[in-house]
C-alpha cells in the first residue's frame, strides 16, 4: 500500500495503517479528495481517536440532562419550561499563530454551537493560559487574545461574564484559549443535527473562501517552528455576519421553519454535512456548484476543507423552504439548498455534474480509536514526592501577602474584563469580580443560573488525577458559594501528545480523576472538547482540564457575593485553618518551587460543605461568601475586603507554621459572613451536618488585621488594593 501512493500519504500525513483501513472500508483506493475527507474527519480534533475510549468513563446521565455529549452542545433543564445549552471549546493553535483572529473565531464557533441547539446565547466565558508573564511574546499573545475575544463577543452582543487567566512556564510554547458559551432555550424548541429523507439541506450565512483550510488537521498537530506558515489555516471572524446568521437561525426555529440545525465549524462542509447525515442514519448528496463563494477558481478540495466562519446548515420543514429563503433575504444572507438527504448511507460530493467523492458516512464518522500504554514522567513523580518539611520559615509575612496579591495569577483581572461587554442582554446579576461565579437571571422568572470555569495547572501538572478532581470540585464549589445548585458540566481537556507514554498517561489520569469526582459530586458531563498535541519542541503543557459548571438558583434574590458589605458581621470559616504548601502559589512565588503534592480532596466532605453553604444562602442567613483558593486564607480575606473597601479583624489559632496558615491551600473551605441574629443558628446548622467551622472574627474598619498565635499582622485595605490592581494594568493599560 505504501508503495502505491507514497506522495499522497506524505502530503496528507495519514499513517499507512489508517490508509489501509480506509481502503478496506471503501473496498478500493480513495482518490485525493476522498483521502482529504478522511484526513480531516479522522483528525484528533474531529474524531477523538485517543480520548474516546477514556471518555466513556465519564457519567453523562442526570435528572436535568436533556442532551448529553454528541450534539453541538449539551442541554440541561432549569424549570418553568426553560433549559440551558452550554459547551466549552478550544482554539489553541490558531490563537498561538494569530492571537486576535484565533480567539475571535473561537468565540464565534462556540456561539454557533449553542445557536445550533435552538438556544439564544446569553453568556460567554473563557479560560486562558499563557507562558512566563515577563516574556514579550506572552504580552503580545495576551493582548491579542483579549482583543479578539472583545472584538467578537462585544459586537455580536453576547456578554462575557467570567473567565480565568493563568500564567505558567508550561504554556510558553503553546498558549491555551478555550471559550465557553451558555444559551437559553424553551425546552420545546430544542434542535438537533438531524434531517429526514429527501429533505433539501440549506447553507445559510457567509460565503465560502480560502480561509481556514485544514484547520481541524492543524489543531491536531504539535506546534512547530513553521508555525508562521500555518497562518492560512487560521479562520477570519466577522461578528457582524455572525450576528445576522444567529438571528436568522433563531428566528427560523421560532417560526417553526426548520427540523434540523448544524453549525459549520471545524472541517466546514465536510464535517457538518457528513455528521448530520450519519446522525440521521441517511446519506447526503452535496452539489458543490451551488455553494456560495467569495472568490472564483476554488477547487472542490478547497471548498470541502474551508473553515470560513459564520455559516450554518439548516434543514427546512416540508413546505417551508421559501419562508426560510425569504427570512434570510431580509437579513441579506445567502440561503441556498446545497445538498439533499438520500437513502443510501453515503456522503456524495458532486462538482460540475460529476461525482468527485463518494464515501460511506459511517466510514467517515467512525475513525479508529487508540488505547495506549501510559507512563508517568519520572521527573514529575519526583517533584511531587519532594519533602517540603525543611522549607525555611518565612521572615516577612507582611510583605508576602502583598507579593502574592501582585502575582500574575492572583492580581486583579479588571484590566481584562473591562474590555469585554459583560452586561449586554441585561441579565448579568453578579458582574465579573463580584462573586465566585457569574450569575445570570432568567427574565420572566425568579430563577437564575450560575456559571464558573476553573482549572489549576500546578495541581494538574504535579498530580494529573487529583488535579482534575480539584478542577471539578472547585468549579462546583464556586457555583455553590453564590448559592446555586450545580447541575452539570462541560469539559475542555487540553493536553499534550497522546502518542507519547507521558502524554497518554496524563490524558488517562485526567479523565479518570474527572470521572471519580463526577460520580462523587453527582455531576454529569453534557458536552466538551478534547485538544491534544498541545506542545512545542521543548515542553508539554501541564494537563489542563478546564471545567465549566452550570448551576441553578431557584430564587435569584437568595444569592451571595464575595465582598464584605456590613460592619460588624461575623466572619466564619468552613474547613480547617491550616492549608498545604505543596503545589501552592506561595511555594512557587516565594521559594520558586513547583513541588509537593496538591492538597488532598475528600469528596464526601466536599459534597457536605457545598450543600451547607447553599443552604445557609438559601435560608437567607448569608449574603457574603467566598471560596478559599490559591493564595490561601490571607488572599481570600483580602479579596473579600476589596470590593467595598471594608476591612476585618480575624484570629487564627492553629499552631501550624504561619505560612501554611496564611497562604496554604486546601479544598472544601469557604469563608462567609453572618449577622449576629443568625450566627448561632448557622453554627448549629453546620454542627448538625458535621461540617467543621470556626468563627474567625468580624468585619469592620479599613484595615485587614490577622492575629496569629505569635504575631499580629495588619494592612490597610488601600495598600492591599494598590498591590493587587497594578500588575495587569501595566500589560493592558
Amino acid at each position, binding site marked *: 500500500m505504501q508503495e502505491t501512493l507514497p506522495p499522497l500519504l506524505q502530503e496528507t500525513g495519514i499513517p499507512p495503517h489508517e490508509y489501509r483501513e480506509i481502503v478496506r472500508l471503501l473496498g478500493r483506493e480513495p482518490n485525493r479528495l476522498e483521502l482529504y475527507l478522511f484526513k480531516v474527519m479522522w483528525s484528533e480534533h474531529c474524531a477523538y481517536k485517543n480520548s474516546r475510549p477514556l471518555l466513556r468513563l465519564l457519567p453523562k446521565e442526570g435528572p436535568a440532562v436533556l442532551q448529553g455529549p454528541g450534539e453541538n452542545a449539551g442541554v440541561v433543564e432549569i424549570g418553568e419550561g426553560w433549559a440551558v445549552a452550554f459547551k466549552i471549546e478550544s482554539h489553541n493553535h490558531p490563537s498561538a499563530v494569530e492571537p486576535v483572529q484565533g480567539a475571535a473565531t473561537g468565540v464565534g464557533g462556540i456561539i454557533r454551537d449553542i445557536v445550533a441547539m435552538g438556544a439564544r446565547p446569553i453568556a460567554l466565558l473563557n479560560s486562558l493560559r499563557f507562558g512566563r508573564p515577563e516574556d514579550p511574546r506572552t504580552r503580545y499573545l495576551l493582548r491579542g487574545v483579549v*482583543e479578539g475575544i472583545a472584538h467578537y463577543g462585544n*459586537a455580536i452582543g453576547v456578554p462575557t461574564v467570567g473567565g480565568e487567566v493563568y500564567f505558567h512556564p508550561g504554556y510558553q510554547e503553546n498558549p491555551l484559549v478555550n471559550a465557553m458559551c451558555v444559551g437559553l432555550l424553551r425546552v420545546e424548541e430544542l434542535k438537533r443535527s438531524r434531517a429526514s429523507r429527501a429533505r433539501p439541506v440549506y447553507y445559510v450565512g457567509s460565503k465560502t473562501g480560502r480561509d481556514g483550510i485544514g484547520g481541524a488537521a492543524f489543531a491536531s498537530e504539535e506546534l512547530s517552528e513553521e508555525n508562521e506558515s500555518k497562518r492560512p489555516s487560521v479562520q477570519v471572524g466577522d461578528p457582524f455576519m455572525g450576528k445576522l446568521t444567529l438571528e436568522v437561525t433563531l428566528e427560523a426555529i421560532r417560526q417553526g421553519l426548520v427540523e434540523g440545525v448544524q453549525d459549520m465549524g471545524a472541517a466546514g462542509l465536510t464535517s457538518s454535512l457528513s455528521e448530520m447525515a450519519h446522525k440521521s442514519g441517511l446519506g447526503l448528496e452535496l452539489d458543490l456548484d451551488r455553494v456560495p463563494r467569495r472568490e472564483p477558481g476554488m477547487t472542490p478540495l478547497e471548498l470541502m476543507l474551508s473553515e470560513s466562519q459564520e455559516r450554518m446548515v439548516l434543514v427546512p420543514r416540508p413546505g417551508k423552504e421559501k419562508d426560510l429563503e425569504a427570512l434570510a433575504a431580509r437579513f441579506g444572507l445567502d440561503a441556498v439548498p446545497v445538498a439533499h438527504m438520500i437513502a443510501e448511507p453515503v456522503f456524495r460530493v458532486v462538482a460540475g455534474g460529476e461525482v468527485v467523492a463518494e464515501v460511506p458516512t459511517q466510514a467517515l464518522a467512525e475513525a479508529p480509536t487508540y488505547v495506549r500504554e501510559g507512563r508517568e514522567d519520572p521527573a514529575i513523580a519526583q517533584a511531587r514526592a519532594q519533602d517540603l518539611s525543611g522549607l525555611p520559615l518565612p521572615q516577612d509575612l507582611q510583605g508576602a501577602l502583598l507579593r502574592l496579591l501582585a502575582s500574575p495569577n492572583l492580581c486583579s483581572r479588571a484590566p481584562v474584563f473591562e474590555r469585554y461587554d459583560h452586561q449586554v442582554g*441585561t441579565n448579568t446579576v453578579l458582574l465579573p469580580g463580584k462573586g465566585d461565579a457569574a450569575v445570570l437571571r432568567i427574565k420572566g422568572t425568579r430563577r437564575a443560573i450560575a456559571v464558573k470555569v476553573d482549572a489549576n495547572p500546578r495541581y494538574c501538572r504535579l498530580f494529573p488525577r487529583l488535579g482534575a478532581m480539584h478542577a471539578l470540585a472547585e468549579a462546583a464549589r464556586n457555583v455553590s458559594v453564590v448559592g446555586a445548585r450545580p447541575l452539570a458540566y462541560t469539559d475542555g481537556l487540553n493536553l499534550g501528545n497522546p502518542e507519547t507514554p507521558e502524554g497518554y498517561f496524563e490524558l488517562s489520569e485526567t479523565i479518570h480523576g474527572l470521572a471519580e469526582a463526577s460520580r462523587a459530586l453527582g455531576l454529569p458531563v453534557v458536552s466538551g472538547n478534547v485538544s491534544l498535541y498541545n506542545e512545542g519542541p521543548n515542553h508539554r503543557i501541564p494537563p489542563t482540564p478546564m471545567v465549566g459548571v452550570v448551576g441553578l438558583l431557584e430564587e435569584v434574590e437568595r444569592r451571595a457575593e464575595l465582598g464584605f458589605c456590613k460592619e460588624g458581621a461575623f466572619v466564619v470559616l468552613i474547613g480547617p485553618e491550616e492549608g498545604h504548601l505543596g503545589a501552592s502559589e506561595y511555594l512557587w512565588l516565594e521559594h520558586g518551587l513547583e513541588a509537593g503534592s496538591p492538597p488532598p480532596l475528600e469528596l464526601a466532605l466536599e459534597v457536605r460543605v457545598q450543600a451547607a453553604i447553599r443552604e445557609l444562602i438559601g435560608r437567607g442567613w448569608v449574603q457574603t461568601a467566598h471560596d478559599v483558593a490559591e493564595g490561601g486564607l490571607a488572599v481570600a480575606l483580602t479579596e473579600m475586603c476589596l470590593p467595598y473597601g471594608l476591612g476585618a479583624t480575624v484570629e487564627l489559632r492553629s499552631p501550624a507554621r504561619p505560612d501554611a496558615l496564611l497562604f496554604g491551600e486546601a479544598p472544601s473551605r469557604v469563608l462567609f459572613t453572618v449577622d449576629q441574629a443568625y450566627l448561632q443558628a448557622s453554627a448549629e446548622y453546620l454542627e448538625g451536618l458535621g461540617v467543621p467551622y470556626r468563627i474567625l472574627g468580624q468585619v469592620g474598619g479599613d484595615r485587614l488585621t490577622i492575629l496569629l498565635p505569635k504575631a499580629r499582622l495588619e494592612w490597610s485595605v488601600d495598600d492591599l488594593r494598590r498591590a493587587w490592581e497594578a500588575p495587569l494594568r501595566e500589560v493592558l*493599560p
Partner: protein
Amino acid sequence: MRVAVVQFPGSNCDQDTLWALRLVGLQAELVWHTEGSLEGFQAAILPGGFSYGDYLRAGALAKFSPVMQEVRRLASRGYPVVGICNGFQVLTEAGLLPGALLANTNLHFTCKEVFVRVERIDLPFTSGYSPGQLLRLPIAHGEGRYYADAETLERLEQNHQVVFRYAPPPSTPEATGYNPNGSLHDIAGIVNEKGNVLGMMPHPERAVEEVLGGTDGLGLFRSLKAALEVLLA
C-alpha cells in the same frame, strides 16, 4: 403612545431597550431598519450595538437606512428621539446632533460603571431627576470620546445642551480621572437645540432593576413616559 426601537443589522441593545421601556409601562415595538414609515409612533430610540458591524465608522452606514428619513421626520415635528451609545453615534453621523464620537483615549473598548451628573431636568428625558443628581450608569464602548470644534462646544454650553456630564463618584468628589473616554467638557450626553433629540453614551437601559445592580437609568424612561402622556393629552 408607542415608542419605536429601531433595529439596524448589528444592533444588540434593542431587546434590552424594549425591556426597559415596557418595564415602566410604555408601549414599545421593534422596527426593522428598512421600514419606510414610523406612522403611529410618537418617539423613537436608536439602541446600542454595532450597526453594520461598525464598518467604515461607527454609525456611518446606519444613517443611510430607510428608517432614518422617518426618524428625522419625528425629530423635526418635536417628538422625542433618543440615541444610546451606537445610537448616539448614528445621530451625530446623521447630523441630528452636532459633534462626533471618537476612539476612547485608552484606545480600547471599555465596559464599567461611571458617574454622570444631570445638568438639565426640563427635558422629556430628565424630568424625573433632580438638578445636579449623580447617576451611576454603565458604559460599554470603544468610541465614546465626544468631540466638537470650539465654536460648537461654546454654543452647546451657552444653549445648555449638555444633559449628562461624567463626574467623580460621590465618595471622592475631588477625584480626577473619572472621565472614562476623554470626552471634551466631560460630555456624556447632549440634546439638540429644541431639546427633543438626546444622544448619550452611557446605557440607562442597563440600570433599571435592583437585580442588575442599580436603577439610576429608570428615571430616563419614566421621564419619557410622563412627557409622552403630556404630549398626547
